[in-house]
């Protein structure tokens, strides 16, 4: 095997904007590709989160039971976990649903059962948690990359630090918003 660092990216309840900002590294992506391997991500075809990941980048808040389980799995198989973007860091936009209770929320979106509609979906979809949570409320997080989304330069700094084995606490903080 190569000695490339094993990087994973994963998407909980976010808008994919953080992943798009990751891709905004543009040509640098291909250069980094020589030094790191994207072992799990919506961009690659692996279906199971692998063991021995050096850095997992998690976008989005924890909104459903599936999100929570996914976050815990990622934590257990990764050396470092980064909360990427304001949704993962604070709850941000998905957290705006927290002032409504779930029954009310789903009815507002899907209608009430009985009006010519079946009501909110219940089969084969993961149930919502009572509250949408930032990532650190579910699992331990090693580094926070705020921003909506964090700029591509933030990803570059984080990846370089991990590639060089530097202490992540020395990373300059990025701004929110």
């Amino acid at each position, binding site marked *: 095997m190569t000695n490339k660092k094993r990087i994973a990216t994963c*998407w909980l*309840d*976010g*808008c*994919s*904007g*953080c*992943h*798009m*900002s990751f*891709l*905004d590294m*543009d*040509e640098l*992506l*291909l250069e980094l*590709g020589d030094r790191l391997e*994207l072992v799990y991500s*919506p*961009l*690659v*075809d*692996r*279906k*199971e989160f692998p063991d021995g990941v050096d850095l997992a980048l998690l976008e989005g808040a924890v*909104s*459903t039971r*599936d999100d929570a389980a996914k976050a815990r799995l990622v934590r257990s198989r990764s050396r470092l976990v980064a909360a990427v973007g304001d949704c993962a860091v604070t709850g*941000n*936009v*998905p957290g*705006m*649903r927290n*002032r*409504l209770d779930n029954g*009310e*929320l*789903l009815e*507002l*979106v*899907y*209608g009430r059962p009985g009006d010519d*509609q*079946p*009501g*909110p*979906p*219940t*089969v*084969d*979809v*993961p149930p*919502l948690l009572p509250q949408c949570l930032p990532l650190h409320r579910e699992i331990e997080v090693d580094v926070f990359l705020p921003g*909506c*989304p964090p700029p*591509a330069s933030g990803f570059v700094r984080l990846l370089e630090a991990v590639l060089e084995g530097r202490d992540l606490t020395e990373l300059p903080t990025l701004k929110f918003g």
Partner: protein
Amino acid sequence: MATTISIDPVTRIEGHARISLYLDENHRVSDCRLHVTQFRGFEAFCRGRPLEEMPALTARTCGICPVSHLLASAKACDELLAVRIPPAAELLRRLLNYGQLVQSHALSFFHLASPDLLLGMDADPGQRNLFGVAAAMPEVARDGIALRRFGQQLIQRLAGKRIHPAWVVAGGVSRPLERKTGSIILAELPAMLTAARNNLARLQGVLENFQAEIASFANFPSGYLALAGTGGRPEYYDGPLRLLDQRGQELFSEPVAANYGHHLAEKVEPDSYLKSPYYRPLGPEEGMYRVGPLARLNAATACGTPTADEALAAFRELSSNGPVASSFHYHYARLIEIIHALEKIEELLGEEATYDCRVRATAGANAPEGTGICEAPRGTLIHHYRIDEQGLISGVNMIIATGHNNLAMNRGLLQASRAFIDDGDMALVAPTDQAAPPAIREGLLNRLEAVIRCYDPCLSCSTHALGQMPLAVELRRNSGEFIGRVTREMAANHD
């Protein structure tokens, strides 16, 4: 014994989803369903927010096409203010939209779909990604990254930020465009156009390898919904909402955005967070239609820009009578639209009026209701808002491109799974004992996912209501009882 196979997660798509494949006693496909597993809730939590917040807030439904949400939302807000926006603001919004069309289509074609198209549906799953393409055909990966970067930089140069810029506002845009910025963008165009043309030629060159996929990836008659441009041109920002039938005949052309609900209805599915819109008079079965690049080019008679028109002529030859019906050709249509968008960017940047300093109309809340419709990269996008006396949002409905395609995606999955399982040589071996997962050729799973990738669905976006899309295959009895789940690794191990 009847079984269900689940593909989870669907990868190289924008969102979280799962596919369930239902097999009867004889292991023949009885149904195939796409479950979208992320819920977002925008229609609920936007209530009570000031209308001015809506463009920037609803842009967060999607990080891939935030510009589309900005535009549809701002158009709905223009109606709430009851203003006519300055001409330069409209030109700049159009320009921004073309920039997004380029970046989003580049992402779909190069970053997500090109591994299937250029490395092959049965290529090693470990290589079937952008990095695999970069290793095998570095120039393709570089072109894709450059085209995406060009679109993203155009957005940044106009709007200040690549993702979720706040520049599009109710009443127009917040800042005019400087001439020197226009010149910088213009200087990059020729190289981008060359890259787009080269890759269209590359796709045309490999089409013959995909005859089976073209024949079965949602190759069926349907309606085609898109904004109608003047002179039969494709239109992305404003215009009547028009639906064509499977032969290309007009079913309706609606100039008043607010009337969309007369023609379109939405069905809630019990097993997906994604709703299914359909043409109201015909019901969900008959009233299925498609949106996006394929629909827009099927609805257009000419692009009105030279290189895109040449490409459109070749595209027409794919079908001897009427619209091009296979969803496989979304990829083809997407590359033509990249070319068309690049040519339109050149046109707009050459117009004096684009640089006018008056770019925003200001007013308070003047109308109780507003509807904005535009064409997102994936298809027609509708934002519909109601406000109270204070200008606070009291009702929201959003119909999103991927939603329009929901029925067609499901029917396409069924068609492809029948072709490749029932009629193909794709061995599907039932488990000998109930505890063991069944063996499925990996290439089959990838083909089903590839059906979904044709539509370039954006699932976090489409379930603005709640949202996720990975792919898994689940095994169930016909009664619905769960038997097991197949992931790609397991399937590959049984190959």
